[in-house]
């Protein structure tokens, strides 16, 4: 169908991420200019909460463990205890969760909520600065419309944290931002405090298509474009880091790229084909940055060993394929084949306002297809594809992504196993505050956009 072009422009353009624990040696100059300072800082503050003790649930901790008949205590916005038969604190609200399942909040590493919001109006098309192929100077957060009704529907699906990325029109599309999925009037009030930015890059067909007439129009043109940009950034970084150098006027493009070279901004790369991912890995080594994740990566299963060896996450769909040539080799076991390699980091991502609402179901499809080929996957393992692993790729795994004492109390209570068509999130907590309750309309946020649309009751006559 034809809609794919718009959809691809909106969504599937993203790609790689880099992440980065270790900084490249060239970047570690003595002065260490801060390329990742934040002039648009988070104003996020946890919503009011009370202590909550969830009891007698099947708990998937997000660390690979399952606790049957388990309890989880949320206190002061943090996970205070996880285990069996926890003592009942005096001030705790008790949630009897027999038959329910509890997981960490769902995390989507690849979303365009807010930058390609609903309704999908021309005026809302804010995800691709498709005016030149290299735009590391743009920041997705400056496009986010906090009233996108998609935030609320994602919240009702247990999504507590998401990375909003620029689209994939550009070789280097700009900075992505990590948000806590709380209703807010400004994006700053959603901004995950201290989360590193992601740098969105894209390889393959999207930049080729968008810039066909002026270039790059080929894959080799794409690579030349990345190399030129990073060569400039390396020189800029060296200059600004050198002792006694004032550095001259700031360059916003190079600020971002230098941040990536420095390891402060994590590189997320939209890339489909195995051969192209390999090229991007070589590129990262040529310039000394680390790739956090390949996104979409429809052919990741062909190079699963290599991704693990390089410490690169695969942020993948359960079943998307065929909408363009570079997606023609999609298989339903992609996540499972990446996941089975020791030391790997498999992620189920959405890139979709629909998919983000059902990441648990997407994971369920992977489990079912893996089982068919003799690869058993337990629920306690699979939950990591949509909790801890995306958190790792985003550099926030020390604070969220699993139910461990001291982490943010980002928690979902499901009506049963989350890996089913019938699974629904019943309660969602962010930093210990209940932000969604399926049985309580007053705890179901509604966008300003939807307000007052239904005043003509009764419909057309």
């Amino acid at each position, binding site marked *: *169908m*034809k*809609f*794919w*072009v718009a*959809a*691809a422009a909106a969504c599937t353009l993203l790609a790689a991420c880099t992440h980065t624990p270790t900084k490249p040696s060239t970047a570690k100059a003595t002065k260490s200019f801060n390329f990742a300072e934040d002039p648009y800082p988070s104003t996020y503050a946890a919503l009011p909460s009370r202590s909550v003790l969830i009891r007698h649930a099947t708990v998937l901790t997000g660390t690979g463990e399952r606790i049957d008949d388990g309890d989880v205590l949320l206190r002061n916005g943090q996970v205070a205890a996880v285990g069996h038969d926890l003592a009942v604190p005096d001030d705790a609200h008790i949630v009897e969760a027999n038959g329910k399942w509890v997981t960490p909040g769902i995390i989507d590493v690849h979303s365009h909520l807010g930058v390609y919001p*609903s*309704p*999908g*109006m021309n005026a809302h098309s804010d995800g691709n600065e498709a005016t030149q192929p290299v735009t590391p100077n743009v920041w997705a957060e400056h496009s986010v419309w906090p009233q996108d*009704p*998609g935030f609320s*529907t994602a919240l009702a699906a247990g999504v507590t944290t998401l990375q909003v990325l620029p689209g994939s029109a550009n070789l280097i599309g700009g900075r992505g931002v990590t948000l806590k999925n709380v209703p807010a009037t400004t994006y700053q009030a959603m901004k995950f405090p201290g989360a590193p930015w992601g740098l969105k890059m894209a390889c393959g*067909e999207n930049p080729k*298509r968008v810039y066909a007439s002026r270039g790059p129009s080929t894959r080799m043109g794409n690579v030349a474009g990345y190399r030129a940009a990073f060569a400039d950034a390396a020189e800029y970084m060296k200059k600004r880091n050198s002792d006694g150098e004032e550095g001259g006027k700031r360059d916003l493009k190079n600020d971002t790229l230098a941040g990536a070279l420095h390891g402060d901004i994590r590189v997320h790369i939209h890339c489909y084909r195995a051969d192209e991912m390999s090229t991007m890995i070589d590129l990262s080594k040529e310039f000394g940055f680390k790739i956090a994740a390949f996104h979409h990566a429809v052919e990741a*299963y*062909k190079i699963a060993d290599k991704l693990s060896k390089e410490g690169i996450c695969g942020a993948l769909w359960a*079943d*998307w*394929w*065929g*909408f*363009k*040539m570079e997606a*023609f*080799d*999609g*298989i*339903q*076991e992609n996540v499972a*084949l990446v996941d089975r390699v020791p030391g790997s980091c498999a992620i189920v991502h959405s890139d979709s*306002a*629909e998919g983000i*609402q*059902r990441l648990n*179901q997407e994971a*369920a*499809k992977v*489990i*079912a*297809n893996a*089982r*068919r*080929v003799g690869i058993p996957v337990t629920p306690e393992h699979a939950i990591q594809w949509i909790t801890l692993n995306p958190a790792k790729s985003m550099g926030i795994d020390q604070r969220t992504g699993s139910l461990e004492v001291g982490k943010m109390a980002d928690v979902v209570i499901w009506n049963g196993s989350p*890996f*089913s*068509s*019938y*699974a*629904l999130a019943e309660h969602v907590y962010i930093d210990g505050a209940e932000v969604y309750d399926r049985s309580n309309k007053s705890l179901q946020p509604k966008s300003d*956009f*939807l307000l007052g*649309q*239904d005043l003509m009751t009764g*419909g*057309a*006559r």
Partner: protein
Amino acid sequence: MNRRVVRAVAAVSIALFASQAAAQDVLIRNAKVHTATAKGTLENSDVLVRGGKIAAIGRGLNAPGVQSVDAGGKPLTPTLFGGVSEIGIEEVSGEESTVDSGLALGAGSKDMQVRPEFDVTLAYNPASVLVPVARVEGIGWTVLGAIPRSGGSIIGGQGGIVRLDGSMDPIGARMLFVNLGSEADGLSGLSRAAQWMILDQLIDELNGRIAPNSHFAKLTPAGRTALRKYIGGGGRVVFRVHRAVDIVRALRWSKKHNVRIALIGASEAWRVADQIAAAKVPVLVDSLANLPGNFDQVFATEESAARLRAAGVIVTFSQGGDDQSHNARKMRQVAGNAVAHGMSWNDAFDAMTRVPAQVFGVSNQMGSIAVGQRADLVLWTGDPLDVGQVAEQVWLDGRAIPMKSRQTELRDRYLNSNDSGLPPAYR
């Protein structure tokens, strides 16, 4: 009968003969048979297939000499409906040369080309890799939709039903596809109001109020013949439309001209469910579409199917997203989510089997497990509407189809490493 029709009839006969010749007999024992009939679900039952058709259903059936399969109590269903898709009329969405789903004779000019005679099933490629990809997931048949596109008109043309058994020709009657609302206003002078003006003019042309040689006339002679079949109680016209008030106008228009319509998309149909039910108009919804994607879909909700059904509307499903063809298998998720949001399992299951067969006029041969029906069957590992389960075996006309697709071949190539030291291309 003109020569073209004779030739078409002959082709259909040959296809039927060929598939019957290849059909097998099989006895599937001990299944949880979801019949999609008034008999409901039969535990521990057997289904006997002879000559590609269902010959008997019951317990302890005996058929000496017939190959038998023990279902182990697992669910057996009719093959599922793939929704309105472009399976076999597009290969790679982004590659124009592989996409045949729409007509754009007027592209680049301002002349609207109204061609209801356009029959998209003539582009169907049964050898498309999309066909096995869908059918190994239990999708046995789909409606090929003709999609209005720039350079065409709000009338996309005719589509039809294809079974995913490798046969070339569609079954059943054709249906006409028309797009209404804001998504089609680029094809109607930038206003949805003009959509009714254009449709009324076409009626005028059929009625002779506009002479065929008038410079106002929009239809070719073949177009008049084709369109006439759908006016006055003939074939099914499928309106793709979302906004509640547009739906009501469609009901009014179809009543006035005695047109049997169906609605697809229909995000806001639930708001006017009583009127739709009274008009006995079937609706194809997407239970995953719950966002206000545009101003025609402000009231989209996951509860759409349940609310329509509760009002007595005939409900089935079709995906509304970008990829109802490559991911036709996602229809199960659409149905399962309807259940999660209030539809009964039986209604959702019927909506994937018997109901679409009735809506599109082929229920006499498929869509349920009953004696005399085609043996298009699926054995599942568990609940077919749950994404956590998969199809174990599919039969079409009683033939067990190979549970392989290009995707499973790719998977198997990379599933196990080989010791030969040679690249994957040698596996």
